């Protein structure tokens, strides 16, 4: 009995499983189960087809659209695991973990520290955290998509763009007019910046996915 081209099935399964944000153990399990299914399906199709290649193609076709399946599998990952692995276990970009950590430490030091330039440290942390959030929202399997659902992403983004500046602008005006560098002003500024930038990220993500769908 001829076997399927192992690379063809493996590539297909990788296309589905690799972008999923989940623990390695869960992803290994997904890979094994999907591969086992494709192998069985191939054996069934081989009995009906004239050659191994068309049997393999039919097996892949009957399995379904990889993007749709990836979304369904991602939705089946518990939310806590999805959230945890978004920030902790990003094997493909190990620097991300360092940057997430740095931004949070900078915010903590800026917020709790008592040295002269704490606002600078705080703002650096906020800037870094904002970049990381935007970067995360740009990912296909982002948390906003999971929490809000695909269709509501742009709505939440528009809300962020509209509401964020309502915090940023008064805070900037207060700094300019009074020259005060109070933590409360910086917190408002930082929160507003985060909301605005997250909104921009969500809208960009939505536009990008619409363009991909249209293509």
């Amino acid at each position, binding site marked *: 009995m001829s076997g399927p081209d192992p690379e063809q099935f493996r590539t297909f399964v990788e296309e*589905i499983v690799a972008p999923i944000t989940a623990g390695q153990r869960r992803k290994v*399990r997904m890979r*094994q189960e999907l591969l*086992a*299914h494709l*192998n069985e399906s191939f054996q069934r199709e081989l009995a009906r087809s004239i050659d191994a290649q068309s049997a393999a193609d039919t097996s892949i076709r009957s399995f379904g659209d990889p993007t749709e*399946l990836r979304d*369904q599998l991602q*939705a*089946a990952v518990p939310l806590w695991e999805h959230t945890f692995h978004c920030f902790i276990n990003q094997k493909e970009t190990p620097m991300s973990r360092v940057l997430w950590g740095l931004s949070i430490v900078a915010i903590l030091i800026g917020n709790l520290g008592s040295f002269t330039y704490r606002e600078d440290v705080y703002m650096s942390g906020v800037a870094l955290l904002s970049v990381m959030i935007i970067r995360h929202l740009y990912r296909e399997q982002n948390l906003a998509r999971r929490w809000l659902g695909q269709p509501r992403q742009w709505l939440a983004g528009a809300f962020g763009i509209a509401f964020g500046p309502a915090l940023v602008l008064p805070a900037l005006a207060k700094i300019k007019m009074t020259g005060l560098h109070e933590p409360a002003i910086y917190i408002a500024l930082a929160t507003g910046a985060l909301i605005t930038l997250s909104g921009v990220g969500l809208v960009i993500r939505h536009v990008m996915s619409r363009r991909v769908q249209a293509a």
Partner: protein
Amino acid sequence: MASISGDALRGHLETLVLSVLRQGDAHGFEILRRIEQAGSGALSLKEGSLYPALYRMEQAGLIKGEWEDSASTRRGPRRRIYHLTSKGRRRFDEARGEFRQFTTVINTFLGEMA
């Protein structure tokens, strides 16, 4: 016979899986084969969409999966064998009752309209 697919089938996939596993333990491909067989070709399901359903059901404690014996003589990747838990059995009984009630009510309407 027109085939039942997409959302119409997805809404009942959990009950179909529970029903199939009542007949005996099975791995993913076998579950699908039994569903297709029982549906006499009227049920058209994208095969991959079975797995997210299985994972959700396992998390909910309705089914339990175990890897097949590694000493198995079968070649290829290992399969995961699923069986029904007592919670799954109860859920199936509930779902069957709800569905019977639903079809009875709908049939009343359809009967009146005919």
